[in-house]
Structures are given as C-alpha cells and as structure tokens.
C-alpha cells in the first residue's frame, strides 16, 4: 500500500496527461483554452495530494529499491509540480502553444519524469526518468514549428541532449559492470569495499557528470542553453531553466552523495573548480547580452554555478543550501520568465532596450519585476539573498573560502546586469509609455504568488530551512 501511496503524485500526473490528450480530441477549436484550466487544476490538485498523502514515512525503500520515498524526493516533487503549474499559467494564450492539448500533455509527462528523477534510487530507473523528462522537453522547445528559432532550439537541444545522455549511459554501463549492481545505494558499498579500480571509477564519474552537467548547464556543457533558451517559447524556457535544472541537481546530489562517498574529496574538488568556472563564464557572458532571454540564460548558468557550490561542499549544510537556493530560484526565475512572456506577448520584443518606460506602463508589474531581479541579484531581504548566503556558508564550512570569494565577486558582476534591466524598466523612458499594459488575471496572480513566496523565503526562513534540513538528513 505504501508503494502505491508513495507514487500517488506520479499516478496523478499520468492520469492528468491522459485526460488532457483525450479531452483535446473532443474539444472544438474555440473551447481549447479549457485545456489550460484543466492542466492548471490538475497540477494544483496533484500538488495538494502530494502534500497530504505522499509525505515520507517509515519505509524509505519502495518498489524493490527502484525508488526512494524520502524527503529529497518529496521536496523536489513539489518543486517540479509547482514549476509546471506556473508554466501552464504563463503558457495561457501563447501562440501555437496555449491551445494545444499535446503541449500540456508533454509538459505533464516531463514533470512526471522529473518527479521520478528526484526519487530514483537505481541506475535503470534513473536512466528512464531522465529520458522521460528530457524527450518531451526537446519537443516542447521546438514546439512553435512556425518560428524558425523555436525549431532550431528544439533541434539543438535534442542533439546536445542525446549526445550527453549517451555519454552518461556509457558511464552507467561501466558503473554497473564494475560495481556489479544497478542500485546506487548498493553501488556505494561495492565502491567502499574497493571492488572498483580507481581509473574506471573516476572515468565513469566523469562520464556520468557529463550527462548531469548538461541538465544543469554546467561548464563545459552549457553551450546549448543560451540558444535553446532564446529560441524556445518563453514559457518553456521558464520551465527549462527552473524545473529541469532542479531535476538535474536532485539527481546530481543524490548520486554523488549516495554512490561515491568514498571518493568525496576527488569529486568535491572537481565540482568546486567547475562551479567556479561555470558561474564566472555565465556571469561574464551575461554582461554583454542585449536579448533578455539570452541574458537570463547566461544568468541561469551563473546560478547553476552557485548551486554547484553547495553540492561541492558535500555536507549537510551544503544540501540544505542547494534545496533552499533551488526553492528561491524556482520562484524568482519563473517570475522573471513570466515577465518576459507577458511582455513579449504584448510587444513582440525580447530586447532589454524595449523595456524602457515599463514602470510607467504597469507600475505593479514593474515593481514585481524589481523584486524578482533584486532577489536574483541576492539583495536582502529576499529569498535569493538567503540562498546565496547558505551556499557561501556551505563553502566556508567546507574550507573552500576561495570558492566563496569567487562566488562573491560573481555576485557583484551579476548584480550589474540585473541592474541594467531595472535601469531600463525604471529609469529610462520611451515613446508610448503612458499606454497601460493589460495583464491576464491568472498571470498577475501567479506573479504575485512568486513575489510573495520570494519575500517569504527571505524574511521567514525557518519553515523552508527545516524542510531543507530534513532533505539533508536523508544523506547525513
């Protein structure tokens, strides 16, 4: 019974996807935006069900070790489902997407894959989960077939994704071969017992990191993300940059901490260096961007670098910081791409310059945007600040002060380009900026929720912190 309750969210998502596809067939063209509501309510119900019924209990190992029913899986489930729900809201009315049943179906299936990624405790399951999450994303990125950029984004995303996942699978096959098991928890014992020679072990860790690195857009596997983020329909970009990235981190944290504790020092150093390079590259290149989606793409590479810092700490505080950062980052980045989507739908532009005078057109939205970008920049008292704080603390605690210093310098660079956006929104003017800016109610509500959430995470940290602590307790 526990087995079934534990995967209740997954079952609910599957049912939802099926409903969406079936209803789509029956609906007439005019009534297609009902699909949006169905998807939204379905996800909200799943979210509530997860909280009420699928909380981790005594039994952690379910489905013969394929899945883990722990706080890690639980928290990340909520993250993914919330991310999907916001994405649904921002997709509303988006051309060639907002009224397509298969789009919502793919979104939900991808979410299903991610929830399994967060819970997978076995290499086979992990492989399936990653692909279940990724393949729908390839299609979603290239969904606007009429838009050349979108098709190109999907195409590039697929080629890069398939390549890196093939490399990762090769790593999996080596791990299976040398460890003699596909269960990542049992793998740890095999490695600790010294059954795996060092060279194959290190090789397979690096191969596996290629796949994970792609998902979280870690240097040097980040090349795809600016193009894909720019080309993909903006709601999809929001989903890619938050939920998909979070899923990558969930897997990274679990596999690294569970399977390879006996070589912690080695991968820790590797990840610390990659973290430093990732954030520096992301932030420096972001400085020069004029397209807001590309800028946010590079900025999200920078954020991946910060979160990696928490992973590299390989400590309880490190995991806490990863979870907290991801929670805050989810809300802020979803809101950020939400603005971009809303703005694009109205003006047809993604150029930062065209945001001039936005604060006059929609003071409320501009104010929310200010909050969001300040949180991304790590200004107190917002969630992004506390996330950064925890990540830096984790690095300091793990005796990696140099990494914290790199992080701090990066935070200043990042602030510069966030301020640039705010500069255009608030301080510049352009013609026609007296015209009010219409925003759909559901979308402004979603943004309000994001902004309130971010503020909450910055002022009253204790609840989320305790949750993150529970996640950490499943590893330490």
């Amino acid at each position, binding site marked *: 019974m526990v087995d079934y309750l534990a995967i209740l969210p997954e079952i609910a998502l599957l049912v939802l996807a099926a409903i969406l596809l079936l209803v789509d067939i029956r609906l007439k063209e005019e009534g297609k935006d009902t699909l949006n509501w169905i998807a939204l309510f379905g996800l909200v119900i799943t979210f509530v069900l997860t909280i009420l019924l699928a909380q981790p209990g005594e039994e952690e190992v379910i489905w013969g070790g394929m899945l883990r029913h722990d706080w890690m899986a639980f928290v990340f489930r909520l993250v993914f489902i919330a991310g999907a729900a916001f994405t649904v809201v921002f997709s509303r009315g988006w051309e060639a997407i907002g009224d397509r049943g298969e789009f919502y179906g793919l979104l939900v299936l991808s979410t299903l894959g991610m929830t399994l990624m967060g819970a997978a405790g076995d290499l086979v399951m992990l492989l399936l989960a990653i692909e279940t999450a990724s393949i729908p994303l390839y299609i979603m990125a290239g969904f606007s077939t009429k838009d050349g950029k979108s098709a190109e984004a999907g195409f590039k995303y697929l080629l890069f994704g398939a390549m890196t996942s093939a490399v990762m699978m090769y790593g999996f096959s080596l791990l299976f071969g040398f460890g003699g098991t596909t269960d990542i928890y049992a793998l740890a014992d095999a490695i600790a017992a010294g059954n795996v020679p060092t060279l194959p072990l290190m090789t397979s860790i690096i191969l596996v990191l290629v796949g994970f690195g792609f998902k979280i857009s870690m240097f040097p596997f980040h090349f795809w993300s600016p193009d894909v983020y720019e080309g993909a329909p903006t709601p999809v970009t929001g989903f890619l940059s938050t939920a998909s990235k979070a899923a990558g981190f969930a897997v990274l944290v679990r596999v690294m901490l569970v399977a390879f504790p006996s070589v912690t020092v080695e991968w820790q150093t590797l990840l610390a260096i990659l973290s430093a390079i990732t954030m520096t590259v992301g932030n420096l290149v972001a400085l020069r961007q004029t397209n807001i989606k590309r800028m946010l793409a590079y900025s999200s590479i920078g954020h991946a670098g910060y979160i990696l810092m928490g992973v590299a700490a390989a400590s309880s505080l490190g995991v806490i910081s990863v979870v907290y950062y991801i929670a805050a980052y989810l809300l802020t980045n979803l809101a950020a791409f939400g603005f971009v989507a809303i703005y694009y739908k109205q003006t047809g532009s993604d150029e930062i310059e065209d945001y001039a005078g936005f604060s006059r057109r929609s003071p409320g939205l501009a104010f929310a945007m200010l909050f969001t970008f300040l949180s991304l920049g790590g200004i107190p008292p917002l969630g992004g600040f506390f996330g950064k704080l925890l990540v*830096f603390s984790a690095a300091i605690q793990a005796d990696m002060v140099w990494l914290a210093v790199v992080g701090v310098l990066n935070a200043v660079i990042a602030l*510069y380009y966030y301020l640039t956006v705010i500069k255009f929104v608030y301080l510049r003017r352009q013609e026609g900026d007296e015209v009010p800016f219409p925003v759909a109610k559901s979308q402004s509500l979603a943004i309000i929720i994001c902004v309130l959430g971010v503020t909450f995470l910055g002022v009253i940290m204790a609840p989320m912190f305790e949750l993150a602590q529970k996640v950490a307790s499943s590893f330490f």
Partner: protein
Amino acid sequence: MDFILEPLNLVTFFPLVGVLLLLLLKNEQKKIARWVALVTALVTFGISLWVLSMFDASNPGLQFMIEEDWIQVAGWKIKYALGMDGISILLVLLTTFLTPIAILSTWKAIDEKVRDFQLFFLLLEMGMLGVFLAQDLFLFYVFWEFTLVPMYFLIGIWGGEKRMYAAIKFFLYTMAGSILMLLAILWLGIRQGTFFLPELIAKGGIPADVQFWLFLAFAAAFAIKVPMWPLHSWLPDAHVQAPTAGSVILAGVLLKMGTYGFVRFNLPLFPEAAVQLAPTMALLAVIGILYGAAVSYSQTDVKKLVAYSSVSHLGFVILGIFALNEQGIAGGILQMVNHGISTGALFLLIGFIYERRHTRDFDQFGGLWKVVPVYAVITLIVSLSSMGLPGLNGFVGEFAILLGAWGAGTAGGPLGTPLFAAFAAAGVILAAVYILFMFQKMFLGPITVEENKNIKDLNWRELLVIVPLLVFIFWIGLYPKPFFDLIGPSVSHLVEMLPTAVSTVLH
C-alpha cells in the same frame, strides 16, 4: 503588541507606517504625500527624542535591548537583536533629525512622482536606523544592504543628467565591498556559532592572522562607504547627480554608516588586528584628508567641491577612530554628527541656489552678498563651521581628534608617530583655503552675471529648513559637554577592550 511598542522597534519601523499610508495615495496627490512623509518623519524624530529622554548616559552597555530568536536551526543562531548605546544614540538622532529637514527641502524641488520619492525616502530612513541599532551581524547586514535600494532609486530617478551612471556606480561599488563583509560575517557566524554581536565580542579568541583578514573584509565594506581614499571615486558622482535631499542624507547619514561600522564592529571584534592595522588606516585617512582638500580646491562645481571635502572630513573621523583612545574615538563620533550637520546644511544651501539659478558653476556667481544677504550670512556660518572655526561645531570634533591622534602618536602608542596628527592639522588649514576660496568666488566681488541681480533671498520654508541646523552648529560649538557625556562611557568601555591601546593611554 508589547514587542511592537519596544522603543527601538518603534523608532526603526515607524517610517513604515508612513510608507503604508503613501502606498494608498497616487502620484498626483503631491501635497498629501509630502505632508504624510513629513509628519511621519517628525513623529519618528519625536520617538527618538523620547528614547533619548529614557537613555541612561552613565551606562556604557547596550540599552533598550530587544533580543528575539529569528533563525535557530542546524547550528545557525541568528537573532533579531536591536540595542542602543552611546556610540549609536547620536547617529540615530542625527538620522531622525535630518530626515524631516531633507523632506521639507524637497517641497518645491521634487515635483515628479512625489509619492514614490517620499516612499523611498522613508524606506531609506528605516534602513539607516536599522543599521545603527542592529546588534546581530546578520540583521545588520540585511539593513545595510537594504539601504542601497532606495538610495539607488533616489539617485536614479530624481537625479541629474548622468544619474543612471551614478546610481549604478554607487550600487555596485558599495555592494562589492559589503559582500566581502558578508563572507566575513558568515565565517564568524559559522566558526563562532553565533551572529549575536555581544556574544561574539565576549567569546573573542580569534587568532591574530585570521583577525587580520576578517578585519580587512569588514574594512572593505566600511571604507567604501565612508569613503576612504582610494575607494572614494563613487562619491563625487553620486553627490553631484543626487537630488538635494538625497545628497543631504547621503553625506549626512549614509556615509556615517561606514565610520560607525568601524567603531561598532572592527574595533571590538578584531582588537589585535585593529591595533596592528591602525597606522595603515591612519595613513590612508591622512592621505584622504590632504587629497580631499587638494582636489576640492580645483573644483568649479560647488557641489563637487563639497563632495570632495567630505572625503577630507571623514578622513579626520577615521584618524580619530584609529587613534584607538578615548579622545580620538569620541571626537570621531562627534565629528560624524558635525559633518552630518555642516555638510548637510551646505548641500541644502547649494540646493537653494540651484533651484533659483539651475547652475552650480562658480563662474556663474559672484557678488551674491549684495543680492541675498541672509543666504550669504548663513552660508558663511556653515562654511566656517565646516572648516573648523573655534566656537562652531566643526572645531570641537577636529580638535578632539587631533588631540587623540597626537596622544596615540607618542612613543609606544598605536600610531607610533605624531606625524599623522601633524599632517592632519595641515589639512585643517587647507580646508580653510578651499572653503574661503569658494565663498569669495560666490559671494564677494562685483556681480558679473546679469541673472544674479534678481535672485530672491531665502523664504520662510527654507529658513525653517536651515535654522535648526544652525542651532546645532552653535550649540555643539559652544557647549559640547552634553554630547560628549552621551558618547563618553560607551567609548571608554570600548577602549578598555583594546588591550594594547589601554596600556598606551596610561603611559
């Protein structure tokens, strides 16, 4: 309810009441917005006076302490802690005193987006008060960073021509320093197990070499804020571009957050490093004094001149603090207040003339004495106070600082040589040169520019703005005892914590 009514909570967060009221207004309701802001600021000032009346000057410790657990999980001990002692009380009063004055000065000058302006102004006040009262490093940092946002907008929206450049430069410059401080704060919080300042001080025991780095990390944030030479380049831009009220608060209070930080955190937390680094800091301070004075002299824009003179004046404050003895630190703290009053007044006066002539260039003035006598007399008094004429407030602070620096310069003292005091004294003379130069250019001689003949003298509102400052210029100048009485006990308590410094004072 009791928690809200704690005196310090009331002082810090009362401006929020005004903010909430302002949020209900529209930008078009200019008059109401101004009045709401002014009344809020005045009530805040009133509350701070009430706190002052309850303040026990003989007690060197923290008073009105509020201590609540904020985040207490997984080895993190962050408290919501506010407290006030002799070091902070004058700065709190300065903040609550200057804010209504600055708001009143915007009555005519700010006519666009009035509500937003006042809103940011009150938020800024809240942030500054929080900085001066916070007794938990984490809370302090939150307030410290928070002040950046409203100031960014004050400069960026209502500033001069190059306002965006100035605003972003201001933000990034200060952020760069403070984020290094954040690292040091985190290090302390994690390694020492608490962020609560009194607990950290009591615990001590940080090895000297670590203290050195932590001191530098904190100093980076504070030195940029002060700003100390060579980190001052954001200041002239910010001042010149900021609206008058913004300049007043920037010079009057925001810069003091840096010098305050040195006294509050660097000295007691890292006493050994403070002693070790005192000569370096004093050297930078003296360079700042001389450099600021020299550069002031070559300016043609009055506002820029005053901005650079701030670098010079705050050099004195830093010198006083790092004399590490009672006279020096007490003089430094009083000088923070003096500088706030005099420079604040100077910026107000520049603002008045700018509103009339829309220029700040020396060449555009000359002979104003005959046209606007009241304005000229007031400017003369403020200028004299700024250059440290005996009988006015500037003298008292600078004299105490020089005494302190001289004392610290005796053999075995933390500064080691009296040269610092000597060069700083030369700075006083230079100050006289550039200030009198400015005065002569603007007010004496014949009227050269036609438009200047019809300038109106100060009106009642402007007098109302400037006269309270004059009162304090004379009061502190003639009878500084009550002010020193407030500062004294806390400072001697602080000096006792500096092991080496105490022995030198006794010599």
